[in-house]
């Protein structure tokens, strides 16, 4: 494995924009030709029919038009509709499909987020059935959702997902559902007939959905709790698709506010039910189902915003270079002609930031998608695994899992050690245990999913605004190349639907304190220090120092109290927990970006078609990683400092302090001891009064571990601006195509 030297000569440079062969390696699907083909087919739809619709102004209507409906056929033909379907039901991808869906959504969102949402919404509607449905429900609805197989004469049925209400586990009105289900008719020995009253809000795909997975609460003492239930368009009663939502964004998806008043058999309860003492008990309440659905689909949404950022790079470069061409002062061959706005450092630096953010968010999102692919087989067998290990249901499980958590921690520690230094037999034993593997992966998934959703979309929306700003006035017109203003606005919806930012922060504030996750985090920190030894230009050292600061701060906050003696790290103190969640997202994204860089360098060397280009890509992505690590370090330092010190009361003036000086004294001492003035001292003027602009100063007694870490992190920013300069220089030299490959 080669190393990037600290004095890496900035040649060879980035020659072209990264192509598929680079991305396949970085995002780990170089050996999956099914996924590679999915990327190509999704891309053809995105840059063909989708782009043409956007260019033709189809986004200017709220209604679901015939033009927009043609996209459904394009999705069907390209295999996007059937991505989610297992081969036994007519799909073409074996095994878990989180990465597949992420890639398809990424490609569609490269052009239009609404198209991606519309394509994925059908999967969302089917997800409750896929995750928790009975075998019969899966067989029935998967088959109906799948494209017609040879010899079949039928049309594809579409689905929608009707929740709208807050989800459990997020601390906001948990369990409050607008929809009600009651027993309409229950003849002895027959299936009960239920009546569902449900109003949906902001429901995607409702313009054409044939069936809906709806969340409802019990409105009848003969039904326990809540559930999700399948509603069909031809059920008796009202299946009103509602009026189109007047969205300002994502107009290529069909969204409306439907009304349902339907009678359905109890067999439609997703996951089935049992009857006990005359009460229908759903096997899964709506919270259990939604949790298992959203923890996957949110990752896909995060990848959509990542795609927008990366898609902005090419049109911005082309705009920058061509900005002055054709003007009176333009002379072909001159720097003004060749570089245009790229003569200006600011324009380049800002584009570097956008690209670096796009890389980091894609790395985080695809890492999360891959993790869910690993977790899925175990997650679907969770109850079975728990039962096999004697883990009871409900709250008793928490106690029973304590012992297994300790073993999981042991596994995490062993896994991070070199093979020759660990107890191999013990490691094998722990690795072979499904429950341990489940706990380890689940702990990480519970962090990565909200992190990808929160950071990619929230910070991504901010950075899309940066991209728009780089296009000048062009950036707020429909003619802006690459549809950048539309993408900017769309990003705001992506930050909102499937759980807005506060929901993700709330979830992170709980899951990021998991001992298993924190153990993993500690091992990553060590790993990054080792990486920094080989690749000091990658920002790994900066990132490790930032992670160290965050970890110390978290542990401090978990036990600290504010100036009034109230504990700091509590669920309701979102001023503490939420910023820490934000800070963690920066760290995670940067970490996965560096890991993707290493993957490219190591695996890319085996790809003959990359042989010539690889050093340039590695150099450039190294610089981007460094830039992003420095940005993450800055955010983490700011947040941690404000939380560690911000809840202490600011000191008042006191003349009794052993560190109080008169201003004149201090001036004299400064001559003897240069720098003394910058120390934490209180100073008084000649009259003994407190000067307006000096002090009283805080003291750092007891905070030395923090200040040392903070100082180290500041120092670790060394080289990060040089990396940005180098990346900026590369942007002036990289060859871009003559035109976008879609009519944007």
């Amino acid at each position, binding site marked *: 494995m080669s190393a990037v030297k600290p004095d890496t000569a900035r040649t060879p440079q980035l020659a072209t924009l990264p192509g598929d062969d680079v991305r396949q390696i970085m995002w780990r699907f170089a050996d999956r030709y099914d996924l590679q*083909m999915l*990327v190509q*087919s999704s891309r053809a739809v995105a840059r063909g029919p989708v782009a043409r619709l956007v260019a033709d102004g189809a986004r200017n209507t709220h209604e679901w038009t015939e033009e927009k409906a043609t996209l459904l056929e394009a999705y069907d*033909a*390209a295999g996007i509709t059937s991505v989610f379907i297992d081969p036994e039901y007519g799909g*073409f991808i074996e095994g878990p499909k989180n990465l597949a869906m992420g890639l398809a959504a990424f490609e569609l969102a490269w052009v239009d987020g609404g198209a991606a949402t519309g394509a994925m919404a059908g999967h969302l509607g089917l997800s409750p059935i896929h995750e928790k449905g009975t075998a019969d429900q899966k067989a029935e609805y998967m088959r109906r959702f799948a494209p017609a197989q040879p010899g079949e004469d039928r049309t594809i049925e579409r689905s929608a997902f009707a929740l709208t209400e807050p989800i459990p586990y997020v601390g906001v009105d948990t369990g409050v559902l607008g929809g009600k289900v009651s027993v309409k008719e229950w003849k002895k020995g027959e299936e009960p007939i239920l009546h569902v009253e449900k109003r949906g809000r902001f429901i995607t795909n409702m313009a054409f959905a044939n069936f809906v997975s709806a969340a409802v609460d019990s409105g009848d003492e003969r039904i326990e709790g809540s559930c999700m239930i399948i509603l069909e368009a031809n059920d008796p009663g009202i299946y009103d698709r509602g009026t189109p939502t007047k969205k300002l964004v994502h107009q290529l998806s069909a969204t409306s506010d439907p009304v349902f008043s339907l009678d359905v058999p109890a067999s439609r309860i997703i996951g089935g039910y049992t009857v006990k003492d005359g009460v229908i008990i759903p096997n899964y309440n709506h919270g259990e189902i939604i949790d298992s659905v959203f923890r996957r689909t949110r990752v896909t949404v995060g990848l959509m915003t990542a795609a927008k950022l990366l898609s902005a790079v090419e049109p911005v470069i082309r705009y920058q270079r061509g900005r002055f061409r054709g003007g009176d002062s333009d002379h072909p061959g001159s720097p003004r002609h060749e570089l245009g706005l790229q003569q200006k450092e600011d324009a380049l630096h800002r584009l570097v930031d956008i690209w670096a953010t796009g890389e980091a968010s894609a790395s985080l999102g695809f890492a999360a998608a891959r993790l869910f692919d690993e977790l899925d087989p175990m997650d679907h067998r969770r109850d079975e695994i728990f039962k096999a290990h004697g883990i009871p249901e409900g709250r008793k499980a928490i106690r029973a899992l304590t012992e297994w958590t300790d073993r999981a921690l042991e596994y995490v520690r062993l896994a991070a050690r070199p093979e020759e230094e660990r107890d191999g037999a013990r490691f094998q034993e722990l690795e072979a245990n499904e429950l341990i593997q489940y706990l380890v992966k689940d702990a990480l998934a519970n962090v990565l999913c909200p992190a990808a959703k929160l950071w990619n979309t929230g910070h991504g929306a901010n950075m899309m605004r940066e991209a728009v700003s780089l296009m000048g006035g062009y950036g707020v017109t429909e003619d802006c190349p690459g549809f950048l203003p539309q993408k900017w606005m769309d990003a705001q919806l992506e930050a909102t639907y499937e759980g807005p930012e506060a929901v993700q922060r709330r979830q992170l504030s709980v899951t990021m304190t998991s001992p298993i996750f924190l153990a993993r985090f500690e091992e990553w920190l060590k790993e990054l220090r080792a990486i920094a030894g080989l690749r000091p230009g990658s920002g790994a050292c900066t990132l490790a120092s930032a992670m160290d600061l965050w970890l110390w701060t978290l542990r401090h906050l978990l036990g600290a109290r504010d100036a009034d003696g109230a504990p700091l790290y509590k669920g309701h103190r979102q001023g503490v927990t939420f910023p820490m969640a934000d800070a963690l997202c920066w760290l995670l994204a940067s970490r996965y970006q560096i890991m993707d860089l290493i993957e490219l360098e190591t695996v890319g060397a085996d790809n003959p078609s*990359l042989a010539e280009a690889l050093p340039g890509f590695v150099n450039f992505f190294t610089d981007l990683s460094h830039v992003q690590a420095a940005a993450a370090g800055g955010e983490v330092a700011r947040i941690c400092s404000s939380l560690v010190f911000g809840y202490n009361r600011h000191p008042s003036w006191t003349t009794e302090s052993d560190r109080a000086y008169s201003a004149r004294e201090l001036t004299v001492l400064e001559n003897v001891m240069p720098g003394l003035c910058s120390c934490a001292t209180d100073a008084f003027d000649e009259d003994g009064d407190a000067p307006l602009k000096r002090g009283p100063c805080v003291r750092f007694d007891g905070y030395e571990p923090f200040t040392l870490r903070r100082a180290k992190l500041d120092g670790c920013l060394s080289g990060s601006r040089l990396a940005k300069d180098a990346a900026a220089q590369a942007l002036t030299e990289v*060859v871009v*195509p003559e035109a976008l490959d879609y009519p944007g």
Partner: protein
Amino acid sequence: MSAGFHIAVCGSLVPDPLQTLEPVDTPAGPGLKSEMMLPAVLDPWAAHALYEAAHLAKNTGDSKVWLVSLGPKARLQQLMMNIAQKVPFELVALDGPAGGFSDAYEVAAALAGAVEKIDGLDRPRLLLFGGRSSASRDAGVTLQMVGERLGITDQFLAVDKLTVQDDGSLRVLERVEGGVYQASVCEGPPAVLAWSTGELPEPPNNPQVGMQNMRAIMPALQQAQPAAVSAAGITYRNVEVPRQRRDTKIVKDVPAEEIAREIVEWLRS
């Protein structure tokens, strides 16, 4: 004897036409700057030939299509992720350069050799398809030479339409000057048909077709034989991109009539 055709389509990758192409000198002769890094597509002329071949095979029972490609193996694999989803075919891969500066004579020899070795190919039923030209360099002679090497003398080198007539003969329309066609009839295969644009649109991607194709394509790529193709002995005095013809104009909201009018004006000028 079966009425079906055995259609071998010769075609390989070229840089995506939207890319900025810049000729450079390399130790092996002229080349394109960063050529190995540029996104590639199936040569548009060859692509027309492939789609026509698949269409013909679909409508003529007991027919089969092979795509014979000479190019860097790893690059061909990338190309297949897209092309393999378009239409059913089997790949015959030759691992070698796909640049525009190889000697057409050597390329033809390699392609002809590969066609000869196709297992199960019924030579009397062979239709040799390919592009009349290439987007990488317009030599326009390769397919003709492949045909010669295979002993096929019925050659049509600017085909836009092929009709299989009731008696099994082939009616061929070839593009000639002034927007008119030359109509020819030959008794049947074997024949060489070098396609202009044909009449078919690019088929949409179908991953089911792709998954089916890839079962044979991946082994074919792994078993691709190296092809010794070069430009040895050829001296290029000057190499340049025909920049005037590569002006790209992106338009939207322009009616087809207006676009047609502009094209006519451009042609007249």
